[in-house]
């Protein structure tokens, strides 16, 4: 599973941080998505998929291997 985040699209709603806090954070300046730990994406696959669906700006892309 591969995860990518489009920071230009992100509107800083924070749904990803609420849904998968081990994976996502927001930067301090503009509140845009930051992938904290790409290592746990597979471990938290279900939450990561949910975060991608919930993202209001469709800034997250999950590609299944």
């Amino acid at each position, binding site marked *: 599973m591969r995860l990518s985040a489009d920071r230009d699209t992100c*509107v800083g709603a924070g749904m990803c941080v609420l849904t998968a806090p081990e994976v996502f954070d927001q930067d301090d300046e503009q509140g845009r998505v930051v992938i904290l730990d790409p290592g746990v994406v597979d471990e938290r696959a279900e939450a990561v998929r949910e975060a991608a669906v919930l993202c209001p700006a469709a800034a997250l892309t999950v590609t299944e291997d």
Partner: protein
Amino acid sequence: MNTEVPVPHGLPTERDNGPFNPHSLTARLREARPLSRMVFPDGHEGWMVTGHEVTRQLLADPRFSSRMDLDILHMPIELPGQGEMTEPIPQQPGMFVRMDPPDHTRLRGMLTGVFTVKRMRLLEEHIIQLVERQLDELARLTPPVDLVREFTLPVPSLAICELLGVPYEDRDDFQSKTSRSMDLKLPMEERLAVAMESAEYMSGLVRRKRTEPGDDLLSDLARRDDVSDEELVGIGQLLLGAGHETTANMLALGTFALLRHPEQLADLRANPELMQGAVEELMRFLSIADIGVRYATEDLELAGETIAKGSSVGVSLLAANHDPAKFDNPDTLDIRRNARGHVAFGHGIHQCLGQQLARVEMRAGFEGLLRRFPSLALAIPAEDVKLRTDMQIYGVHELPVTWDEVAR
């Protein structure tokens, strides 16, 4: 699929199916199809979205504009006293909720860093203290009291005033202006005039922030040179209005809903760890900011229909959040359900900027109220609670409550 529902002429705002459920007309529309034709109250032949998935598609599609200055944006609900709109409404600087990218992106981008999950968690302890102080004051009163006046309005109002740097002493004045500008019974001209008055108030405040900035959000914005005074006024008005009107009604209507569902209330009191999920469920169930509208900037396809350029498309977030295709038994309040994916904060680039602040306020507000007032009860018959069917944001005008003991 039932195709027999006639094309409606506007949506009713009253509730014919209990205070918490969508009007039966909206529910029938959704049962027939998630996107329906609708003749708007002013005669415009547009569309209405009631299904959950189509709501998400509509709100995420940048070809549907939020602007009111491009063309006449028709309102899906009857606005008594308001004549037919004949001109687009000019854009107010700073009101990014009524803008599209790139203007929306630039203005919202100045604020998103302040409203992150992390920043709001840092604020949580402070909000809890603010709630406790307000509960102390409430506990000193002799019941019955109006919970809106004494608790649900002061809490978010205090929080947003502090965050923005608005003097709390000014609240009676700007609260009455906000509430008049959102009163659907008033003629649009009067509502716009009130909005102008509150712009004047904010304008004075912005001038003070420019000359003597303090430690608050408006001051931080006032230190920038890439935002005009007019934009600062619009941003200030938008955040101040959105910051107290919405959460106040969530706390009040949410308390009313819990008191009307005693088994749910008992479950939440006994299991405070359910609070986070309960707040999401109350958001879904109540959807206090119900009706939205978008403008089709080109001919486009949505849910298999062709929407012509120039059409207004209404959306009911309440109907979407009560869509059985998304939530089982949607008309049932169930604090143990997974309500994630609700659209009570909207969807797309305009999804509520202050949602993480709202969540912190609601968790602290409901938790404190239920703990301190274990015997909280309605002081009047439930049928007599005055519902805000005449306001842009749904809720209760007053919530008279009583109690016979106060806990620490």
